[in-house]
């Protein structure tokens, strides 16, 4: 009996080892000068949102700049650091971390490998005195500005005067979306009500579409007819929620959702009013290009409305949903924000 159970464990273990060891070894390619490694957030590279945008950017870089690209989708937060260190040990030219959660990890790794260049999306890495590391580019976005514009569109569209906001994790970065959205909506209708909910307080919050849908349904129950999501995979639940209410007699959806990070207009065409696009793809592409052309600069790279770092998406899926005069108003507000005439509150500013 003892022997049999031992055998059983051996078989199981070797199966696990076999499964975990598949995939290309990192050294496989030698035909390129620049090696880029990217470590995704827990949501994974196909979340049709934030990670997907980063993935698009590095893929474009791979094609157009002839760099070698390796990616890791960490299974849990503890496998982020080993992945980064593996890239660093292999002397990669650039290591990209996606998501604020990787900030503290990258800080440790970047300190240990001062000759390797790093970039972090949505994170800020500084030493004790608040000075940025010379080998780390912190790619940050002025999400509140983009959210302000989609808030305006939402308020123009809303018939009930109630808007919803479904956030992922309850953290300052996500509050930044919410405050911008609310301010934008108020600029159109000062009496508008914004109902906000967050999926959770742990990183499960990005991966619970069922809960995301429940939150959206409860907001609709309270009268919300446009819901802005900033919740990764959980946000897709809100898309299901608005779809449930179908389209009215005029052929237009009864409830709308606003996508985030990537252009999500095509996820449920007709139900997506617009998307607050964060051009993570451009930011990531640029940093790869800088590394390849040897003009990489560490420190903060801020992407706001001015550099089209954030934007609202209009395409064939939603053009009919937003009237011309609304677009005009929004464009007007956009130039005022860029010029500094409208100040949007940044929930993360201390």
């Amino acid at each position, binding site marked *: *009996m003892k022997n*049999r*159970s031992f055998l*059983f464990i051996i078989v*199981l273990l070797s199966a*696990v080892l076999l*499964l*975990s060891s*598949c995939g290309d070894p990192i050294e496989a390619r030698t035909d390129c000068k620049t090696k880029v490694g990217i470590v*995704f957030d*827990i*949501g*994974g*590279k*196909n*979340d*049709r949102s934030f*990670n997907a945008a980063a993935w698009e950017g590095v893929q474009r870089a791979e094609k157009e700049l002839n760099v070698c690209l390796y990616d890791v*989708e960490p*299974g*849990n937060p503890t496998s982020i650091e080993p992945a980064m260190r593996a890239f660093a040990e292999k002397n990669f030219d650039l290591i990209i971390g996606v998501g604020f959660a990787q900030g503290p990890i990258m800080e440790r790794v970047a300190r240990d490998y001062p000759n390797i260049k790093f970039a972090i999306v949505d994170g800020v890495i500084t030493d004790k005195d608040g000075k940025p590391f010379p080998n780390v580019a912190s790619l940050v976005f002025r999400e509140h500005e983009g959210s302000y514009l989609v808030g305006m569109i939402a308020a123009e569209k809303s018939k009930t005067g109630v808007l919803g906001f479904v956030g992922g994790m*309850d953290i300052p970065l996500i509050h930044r979306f919410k405050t911008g959205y609310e301010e934008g909506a108020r600029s159109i209708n000062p009496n508008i009500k914004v*109902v*906000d*909910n*967050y999926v*959770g*307080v742990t990183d*499960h919050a990005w*991966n*619970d*579409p*069922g*809960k*995301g*849908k*429940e*939150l959206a*349904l*409860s*907001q609709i*129950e*309270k009268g919300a007819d446009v819901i802005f999501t900033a919740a990764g*995979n959980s946000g*897709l*639940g809100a898309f*299901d929620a608005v*779809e*449930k209410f179908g389209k009215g007699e005029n052929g237009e959806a009864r409830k709308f959702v606003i996508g985030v990070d990537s252009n999500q207009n095509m*996820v449920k065409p007709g139900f997506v009013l617009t998307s607050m696009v964060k051009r993570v793809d451009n930011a990531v592409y640029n940093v790869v290009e800088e590394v390849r052309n040897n003009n990489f600069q560490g420190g903060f790279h801020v992407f706001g409305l001015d550099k089209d770092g954030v934007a609202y998406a209009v395409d064939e899926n939603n053009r009919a949903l937003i009237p011309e005069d609304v677009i005009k108003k929004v464009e007007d507000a956009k130039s005022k924000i860029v010029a500094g005439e409208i100040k949007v509150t940044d929930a993360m500013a201390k």
Partner: protein
Amino acid sequence: MGEIFTFALIFSTIRFATPLIFAALGGMFSERSGVINIALEGLMLAGAFTAAVVTYETSNPFLGFGSAIIAGGLLAAVFAVACIEFNADQVVAGFGINILMLGVPAIISAAVYDSAGSTQQIDKAYQLPSYFDISFASFLAFALVPICWYILFKTPYGLRLRATGENPAAADAAGVKVLRMRYSGVIISGLLAAAGGAYLSIGQSSLFTKGMTAGRGFIALAALILAKWKPVPVMLACLFFGFTEALVIPLSSYKLASGENIPVQFIQIIPYVLTIIVLAGFIGLSRAPKALGIPYIKEK
């Protein structure tokens, strides 16, 4: 307060309770036969993943639901072999299944859809249908409660299963095939837990995302203990947990008189605090099947 306790809260409670009822009823069969089933979480994930993939590929939610149940049964069989055939520690083996199911869907999903994080989204037309705004799966879950009660307390099979969990040696002496009963209990738990998982991915939402059960398997286990391993109390306990989860939503956007939100951390601990209070204070002694967790080794 009127804006918190609404009609919608009832529907929300039912939706939250549905996967818990499936999983807890499943856990009941396993534990009544004497096998601790901490693997409910992993079994649910297996069901959720299989349902999402099969439904996406075939555009038939019932085929997806059925395949999920079969997948859950197969995975439970692996767990059963470890625990029953090889007398592995049931808690350790169960955790092994849970950890395995965090990884396996990701590997398959990465290979098939080039994304470890989630599968493709399923069109609304191909999700499990709803009647009167309640999912097909919810009706099934509630219908299973009396059926499980009948099987467990009114059939010879149920009597043998319970005997196996209470006193396997006596059951054995009476001619009950103890190991076979335990196999059946564990496999039924896999079938049911996977149905709960399938509801999550193709009923409540429209895709599988990594670790999407988010601890619901463990909540189901807590409900099972709270309900003292009895079907009708299991349903009530699951409704209770579903209710606390549903209650969190309106509370978290509830404005105090001062116009401030209640800090979300306080609200999100409500389900857990209530669980501790109820488990510790109100139910009295919860007596587990006597032979729970003890491998049965026949005397030679």
